[in-house]
């Protein structure tokens, strides 16, 4: 016992109470995660077979057993790839502008602010925009590419934000050393700044990809539905995996709901793998730093 007076029982009790509430809140937050993952794995495995991965839904009604999501998986991969091809260059260049060229200018402050605001755009609004602009005004057809456009709108701000953070972490000494050697600014950026922050940028980009891969609403309005395989993302309706889950889930038969669960399992596998890979790259980088 020290000479200092001990904390009164009431205060100690309150402290304990809050502590247990805080612990409890974490448990409450984890319950839905475990519940969702458990249900997806348990119900998804029932139909997660070879047929599911290699067949489309052509000529298969809601009541029929069988059928698969090959067309949807293929569509999702193509759409996400296209969306990445559009948004990664734009996102990277914007981040480079914000960090390297625009520091402190009014334009860069404005871009920075609107990038933040853009992250909050509801995904369905991005879909509506592509519908209004690309399909209704320009008269283009529903296609995988239209879906990719919508996804890229959602992806861009995320890419910009994460890349910007990473570029800011590059020490100025490196840039100045490069300038001192007479290397022009753009080559300094390409040869010094970007390689230094590469793994961090890759992590951010992969998280952005993982985020849009699960988006349903923008696809619903832009790629439309199809039960057949469409390999060409530039013409005709395509399917996407999230859309497939939505479509099957809104049909009230058991075999359709089983397909929805299997689709959800495939989708979660894709998204979680992307997530995990992104975190591992990030971790590998930070441990390399320490060495």
């Amino acid at each position, binding site marked *: 016992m020290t000479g200092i007076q001990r904390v009164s029982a009431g*205060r100690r009790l309150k402290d304990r109470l809050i502590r247990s509430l805080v612990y409890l809140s974490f448990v409450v937050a984890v319950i839905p995660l475990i519940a969702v993952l458990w249900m997806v794995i348990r119900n998804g495995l029932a139909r997660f077979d070879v047929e599911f991965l290699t067949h489309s839904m052509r000529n298969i009604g809601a009541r029929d057993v069988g059928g698969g999501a090959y067309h949807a998986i293929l569509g999702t991969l193509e759409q996400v790839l296209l969306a990445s091809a559009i948004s990664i260059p734009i996102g990277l260049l914007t981040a480079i502008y914000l960090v390297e060229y625009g520091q402190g200018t009014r334009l860069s402050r404005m871009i920075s602010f609107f990038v933040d605001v853009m992250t909050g755009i509801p995904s369905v609004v991005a879909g509506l925009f592509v519908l209004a602009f690309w399909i209704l005004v320009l008269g283009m057809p529903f296609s995988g590419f239209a879906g990719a456009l919508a996804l890229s709108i959602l992806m861009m701000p995320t890419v910009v934000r994460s890349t910007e953070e990473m570029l800011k972490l590059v020490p100025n000494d490196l840039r100045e050393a490069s300038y001192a050697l007479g290397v022009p600014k753009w080559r300094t950026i390409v040869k010094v700044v970007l390689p230094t922050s590469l793994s961090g940028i890759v992590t951010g980009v992969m998280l952005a990809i993982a985020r849009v891969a*699960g988006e*349903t609403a923008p696809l619903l309005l832009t790629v439309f539905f199809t039960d057949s395989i469409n390999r060409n993302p530039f013409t005709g309706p395509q399917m996407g995996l999230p859309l497939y889950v939505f479509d099957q889930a809104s049909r009230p038969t058991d075999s359709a709901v089983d397909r929805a669960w299997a689709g959800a399992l495939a989708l979660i596998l894709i998204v979680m793998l992307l997530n995990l890979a992104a975190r591992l790259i990030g971790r590998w980088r930070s441990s390399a730093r320490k060495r």
Partner: protein
Amino acid sequence: MATPLRIRTDEPSLRSPSRRHGGGESLFRRASTAAGVLLLLIMAAIAVFLVVEALPALRANRGNFLTTLTWEPNGSQSFGIAALAFGTLVSALLALLLAMPVAIGVALFISHYAPRRLAGVLGYVIDLLAAVPSVVYGLWGVVFLVPAVQGPFRFLNEHLGFIPLFGGDTVAGRSMLTAALVLAVMILPIITAVSREVFLQVPRTHEEAALALGATHWETIRIAVLPFGRPGVISAAMLGLGRAMGETIAVALIFPATFDISLRILTPQGNSIAANIANGFGEATPIGRGALIASGLVLFVITLLVNMGARLIVARRREYSGAAA
């Protein structure tokens, strides 16, 4: 120093490196500026094209867009946003109410209670909640949550039915509260992430001063951490609100898609702007599509205002803490 330093002023690349790479430099600068400007243009284009495509439908509207309670742009061409906007706001606010205490608790847990080694991993677990696609939450909500909540809802209705919120004659799993529950789970990660950031920014000296005065752990948090973090938590809440209002597929699967304004959150009614777009798009005529785009425009404006408000609070905070440092 084996080799003496030599300065060769005759080397042209040293004196004017820009001459050799001048083209590349200006090209690169222009490209990166153009990309930034393109983002601004996209934001502007979103607003412009939504307005352009919404106008014909708004002109053809036989009802009042702001007050009409029905949504029949395909048939009688009379539609209004009132019921949808009400549902959007109520479900989002309800979700926020449910998520806020848990999110603050989790943020405190990760920043101030959990062992340092575990904190990173636990934060990642919460982030995984955000990685689950919204359609999967929707599926889970319809197949599992909707039947599961019926018992508790009936209990609430029977024992607390005198409160108008829980009142009503019929109780259903597909109701406003179920949708709000799913939304709460979905916005939990973003609120937690932002709150956690600000809680971690609290200067150590503030906390140590409180501890030195004999404060318990909780008292330290109450007098040092929470007041410092308040603006951050408020903006986190607004970001979560924006998310909840724009969330589409999960609630589209759960809402029974009715068009009335009622605060009875256990009865089978409820809808939102986004859910209505997802459910109504398939059968929409050209006027119907325009009407949906008009409703999307309303959603865009509301979320834009909420998000801008949140960002402004964060920005002001950043300036403030920068000045104090």
